[in-house]
């Protein structure tokens, strides 16, 4: 310290011309500038993580939804036009809980599991906002979750099948697709639109578990030996917000199903029209 004090008063003067600054002064200056740089880089990283990744992921996900809508438009024009209004209205609550037993005469159509990175469909959750339209993509790798939307756990059931259609999504950053997962109220509808049709799930309950609790992904969640007779939707995300010590799990049950030819359920009809209109 004494050494510095002796050097410092003399140091600024030589910079204006005259004798060059001492080596210690220079080293201190470079060290200080590096520290300032590190601080700025860390602040920029925080801004990138908390703000920019959301903009980036939102744009990517809109693109994925648009591609899906385009694909769907091509797919549906190939089908015979059969918009005969077979299925009931969206508000209809079926008494029976087995998949596809009411609302449509046939059991729910089940698509095969696609290749990783392929779009399975689009999820609408009115509780998350009237404009909540997020893609579901096969796989739960960072490439999927960080930019493409909700990820479907490989090996779990597809929508409509007896078993567990399990999805993961970020609570914060990268689009924060499941930020409001804790706001779901039992009875809330979660709509999954695929090429086959609309799967209407009803949120039942949520729980907070440790990150290692893989039994939430079982065909019947948390029942290792059980054979599934119903169709579950399980969504997993970080808990708490901005943390990863736990996972928050939201369980829903398939309420009914309607084929694409029956058109969208009334509650999300406007949203679907907007989404498809983008295509």
């Amino acid at each position, binding site marked *: 310290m004494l050494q510095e004090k002796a050097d410092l008063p003399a140091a600024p003067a030589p910079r204006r011309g005259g004798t060059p600054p001492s080596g210690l002064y220079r080293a201190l200056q470079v060290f200080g500038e590096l520290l300032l740089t590190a601080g700025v880089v860390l602040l920029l990283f925080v801004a990138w993580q908390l703000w920019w990744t959301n903009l980036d992921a939102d744009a990517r996900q809109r693109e994925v939804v648009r591609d899906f809508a385009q694909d769907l438009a091509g797919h549906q024009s190939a089908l015979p036009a059969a918009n005969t209004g077979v299925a009931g209205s969206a508000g209809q609550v079926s008494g029976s809980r087995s998949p596809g037993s009411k609302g449509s005469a046939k059991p729910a159509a089940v698509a095969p599991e696609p290749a990783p990175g392929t779009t399975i469909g689009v999820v609408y959750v009115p509780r998350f906002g009237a404009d909540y339209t997020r893609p579901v993509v096969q796989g739960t790798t960072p490439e999927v979750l960080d930019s493409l939307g909700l990820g479907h756990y490989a090996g779990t059931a597809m929508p409509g099948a007896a078993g567990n259609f399990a999805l993961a999504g970020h609570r914060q950053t990268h689009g924060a697709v499941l930020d409001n997962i804790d706001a779901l109220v039992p009875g809330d509808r979660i709509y999954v639109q695929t090429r086959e049709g609309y799967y209407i799930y009803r949120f039942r309950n949520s729980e907070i578990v440790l990150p290692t609790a*893989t039994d939430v992904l079982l065909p019947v969640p948390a029942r290792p030996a059980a054979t599934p007779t119903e169709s579950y939707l399980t969504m997993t995300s970080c808990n708490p917000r901005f943390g990863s010590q736990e996972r928050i799990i939201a369980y829903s049950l398939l309420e009914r199903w309607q084929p694409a030819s029956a058109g969208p359920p009334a509650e999300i009809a406007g949203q679907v029209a907007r989404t498809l209109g983008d295509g």
Partner: protein
Amino acid sequence: MYGWIFSKLPGPLWLRIVTSLVLLGGVLVLMVQFLFPWMAQFSPFTDSTIGLARHP
């Protein structure tokens, strides 16, 4: 350090200011493209899956 780099840039003052802004922009792009995605693996926000180890 930065003063030294600035003094080594060629051209008149306005050109050196422009050059340093371009250099800063380039560094920012490199950070967003490579450094930040790498740093993200150390942040806790992105663990939303069950039972899967963090992918480095």
